């Protein structure tokens, strides 16, 4: 048990992150309107610095701070670096968007940084109140960011729905917390595990309390049946925020869920084995609903929302398959989160670049993108292929890994269902690709089908002629290009050789699954 100073020392990155957020907010006050770009730069440099700092300081540390409230371990470190890096990419891809579509960039970046703080704590929390506060820190930031486009009614509506449902779910979560507390007198994950194991204090109050906790977290994950806010919020929020919601908020929630389950419930095998099936069914329903409803979508963001619900289903299958000492499943979940994040960032960066120029976000608006802006189209297509789980992209490897792990844990049926659901998803991802590559650009001559009895058609390769200048889209700015480049590199790298990353993740899984 480290002393107070040591405690504070180990939290240096978090303090520094808070400072960074405040710094950005403060600097904002003094910067003229034309120099607001500096804020992003400060944030990015700060986040990169913090990532390095975290690695240097916390590498190899295994501590529990404040009597079991917070963990400083490999798991937290991996997620910390993940969140910080994600922050960098999100900020990089939002600069152009913010400049063009939003006001008050200072608060935007500041709040974004604070939300990263919340995510960091979510990965570290070992106790329910801490977890709750961290979660609320993240949520509050996201409520604000969602509603950030103040004059956009969709943004308002998204913010309102998000905060109402968010508050409602946190009420459920807190009620669950209070039930856990009233049956145990404490709220640490370890205490829950001990109570379940020994039976002391265990009873309906505890069980229902835990169920309500899961409801609260399920909201955060957008697991069915707690998912309905997600499409609306994703659609209403600004694109960078949608990206952040889809990737960051989800990853943080999974970090928390992973630690809660791995440390609090999974070790008690005889009880966990009875609950597993419930989570598995939830996962199955989630992946089916998400992917089926996505088939019927027209708006890109909404499509990504349902798609992300589908992916949550896959990840939940991983949660259902967790077992004591078995790091394979945990590895699978974390690897999936990373792969999904890398792929999604590519997709969203491409969408942001598209939106920045056109202001459009329907799937049909992408028509002819392959001719209008080939690089964006290629990036988006690669992203879509990766999300649908095709090689040589990240999506294939992570799905194979996760589903194998799930199957190995005794849930072959769930893995099979996941494979099937993933097949359904292919259809709507291909629809996006179809728009970009097959449909002619607006203004290009429409293509005829070659009728057998018809006149000889024009040269069979003449279709899809170069679009007129009006529909062409300039290449994305260097920031988005950088994000896309990094993202694509990640997508290929994970797709081809994930072993180094798996080695790192293995360490993280071991930290929360002792005895593995």
């Amino acid at each position, binding site marked *: 048990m480290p002393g107070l100073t040591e405690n504070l020392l180990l939290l240096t990155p978090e303090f520094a992150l808070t400072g960074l957020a405040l710094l950005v907010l403060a600097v904002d006050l003094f910067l003229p309107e034309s120099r607001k770009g500096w804020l992003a730069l400060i944030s990015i440099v700060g986040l990169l610095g913090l990532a390095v700092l975290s690695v240097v300081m916390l590498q190899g540390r295994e501590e529990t701070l404040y009597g079991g409230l917070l963990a400083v371990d490999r798991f937290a470190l991996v997620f910390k670096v993940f969140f910080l890096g994600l922050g960098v990419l999100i900020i990089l891809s939002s600069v152009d968007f913010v400049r063009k579509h939003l006001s008050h960039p200072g608060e935007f970046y500041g709040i974004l940084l604070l939300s990263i703080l919340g995510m960091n704590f979510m990965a570290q929390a070992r106790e329910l109140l801490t977890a709750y506060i961290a979660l609320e820190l993240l949520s509050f930031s996201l409520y604000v960011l969602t509603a950030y486009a103040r004059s956009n009614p969709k943004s308002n509506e998204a913010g309102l729905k998000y905060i109402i449902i968010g508050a409602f779910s946190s009420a459920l979560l807190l009620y669950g917390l209070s039930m856990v507390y009233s049956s145990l007198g404490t709220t640490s994950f370890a205490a829950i595990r001990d109570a379940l194991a020994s039976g002391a204090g265990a009873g309906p109050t505890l069980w229902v309390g835990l169920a309500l906790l899961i409801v609260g977290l399920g909201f955060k994950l957008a697991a069915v049946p707690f998912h309905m806010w997600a499409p609306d919020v994703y659609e209403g929020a600004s694109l960078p925020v949608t990206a952040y919601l889809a990737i960051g908020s989800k990853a943080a929630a999974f970090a928390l869920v992973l630690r809660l389950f791995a440390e609090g419930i999974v070790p008690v095998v005889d009880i966990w084995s009875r609950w597993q099936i419930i989570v598995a069914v939830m996962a199955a329903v989630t992946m089916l609903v998400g992917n089926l409803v996505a088939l019927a979508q027209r708006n890109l963001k909404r499509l990504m929302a349902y798609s992300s619900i589908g992916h949550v289903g896959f990840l939940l299958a991983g949660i259902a398959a967790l077992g004591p000492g078995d790091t394979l499943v945990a590895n699978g979940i974390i690897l999936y989160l990373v792969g999904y994040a890398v792929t999604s960032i590519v997709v969203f960066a491409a969408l942001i670049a598209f939106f920045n120029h056109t202001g459009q976000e329907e799937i049909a608006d992408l028509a002819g993108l392959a001719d209008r802006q080939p690089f964006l189209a290629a990036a988006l297509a690669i992203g879509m292929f990766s999300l649908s789980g095709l090689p040589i992209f990240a999506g294939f490897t992570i799905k194979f890994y996760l589903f194998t792990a799930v199957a*190995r844990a005794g849930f072959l049926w769930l893995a099979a269902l996941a*494979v099937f659901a993933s097949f359904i998803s292919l259809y709507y991802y291909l629809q996006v*690709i179809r728009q970009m590559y097959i449909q002619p650009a607006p203004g290009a001559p429409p293509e005829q089908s070659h009728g057998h009895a018809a006149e000889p058609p024009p040269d069979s390769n003449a279709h899809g002629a170069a679009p007129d200048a009006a529909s062409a889209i300039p290449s994305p700015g260097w920031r988005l290009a950088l994000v896309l480049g990094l993202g694509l590199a990640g997508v290929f790298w994970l797709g081809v050789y994930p072993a180094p990353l798996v080695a790192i993740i293995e360490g993280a899984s071991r930290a929360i699954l002792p005895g593995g």
Partner: protein
Amino acid sequence: MQALDQAALFLIVLAPLAGSLLAMFMSRDRPKDAWYFAILVAAVTLALSIYIFVRYDYTAGGYQLSRSFGWLGAPLDINLSLGVDGISAPLVLLNGIILMGGVLIAQTIKHRTRDFFVLLLALGAGVFGVFIVRDLFFLFFFYELAVLPMYLLIGVWGSSTDFGTFLRTKEYGAMKLMLYLVAGSVLIWIGILALYLEAGQQGVSTFDMAKLSDLARDGGLDPTVQRWIFPLFMIGFGVLAGLWPFHTWSPDGHVAAPTSVSMLHAGVLMKLGAYGIIRVGMDLTPAGAEFWMPVLIGLGTVNVLYGAISAMSQGDLKYVIGYSSVSHMGYVLMGIATLHPIGVAGAVLQMFSHGIMTALFFVLVGAIYDRAHIRDSHILNGLFKRMGVVSFCFAIAGLASLGLPGFSGFIAEFMVFTGAFQSDVRLGFVPMALLAGGLGVVGAAITAVYILRLLARTFFGEADRQWAHLTDASPVEKGVAGAFVLILVVVGVWPEPFLRVINVSVATLLEAF
């Protein structure tokens, strides 16, 4: 030599893959350069594939030129293990040839040329990969990689056709093909997981096919479980092999696809399915295979007859060839299912032979379509007068496809029949293999009917004036078609170099039965 042996298999996947990636960075505005570059890459792979085929020592047998690279450790135990045996070596060669032909024929692609070659080379890499890996994960990886580019290749560069009573758009063809093949891979994936789990139960937690094969041969895998797993592979891979009733993606895909893609699609992609059944289904779950073979041989027979009868009333040349592919793949499935060394070897040879033959068909149909902008055999006529070389080669391909001696198809089909007649695969009291062999011979006769009718209708006889403007094949088309004809004849007259390679591995494969 030593260095090349070490690297050959790795290079043959790497070359097209790297070519594909490099081509992404070429200029969009200079399509000719992309074509030259693709030719270069295809030439390298062709050279490598020839090297691999020639280098394969049939006296030694087994897997050769093997390499293994660790990828993920236990408990997954995934390795990039490479190796060719006598079954894959001819198929590697086939892919090298068809890829080269496909790239050459793609000369006519003028629209987004660079992207076309990026995808075509990726497709080639995927196919090579499937043929040379010895690990289930990577087999599946490359399998999906081979499927992936098909959507765009057909969707972007394909053509839509209005048949009067129904419309087949390229979007439909591409989407159906893609969904169908991935649906097949869903089953394969589940099968792979189940196999991995079952092997894990026996303490061999691995995706390494060599270890799994050993386990299966030592009786380590529960036969009941194998019976559950094999149909997953049979149907999953069968979809790609055009197994009835999961075949409709194939003719529709052909109708929509551009020439080069049709060549690769029917030439090698469909072979992946049959190869998968052999390599994964039969090798890793032999007990399951034995149990299900009567069904497979029955379905293969249905394929043969159904494809041939369907082809008879098709008007569109690509539909005719597409259904004929379904029919000919039936022989492959039938041969595999005989579980008889001659039959299985015949099936493998049929894969090679049909690959070349059908690619030849598509080159010619493409040449006609490029000039006439129509493929309806009822409207086209008297082509011999205008397109002598094309028609001559088409007649040759037709004669080869109806199993005329002197062409490779005859040797292969004859071996399949021979195997079927000696095989004792039966369902209850019904001697399935014998029936299949008998009906297969009938199928060959039906093939003669539709091919000869087609030849008479479309190529011989008087030509309408509207076809007076047609010109004969371009030099590139002549070259590719000529090379294919030559291969058909050489293999037909002297199949020994192929058979001695195939036989040795088929014998090893069948030891498990």
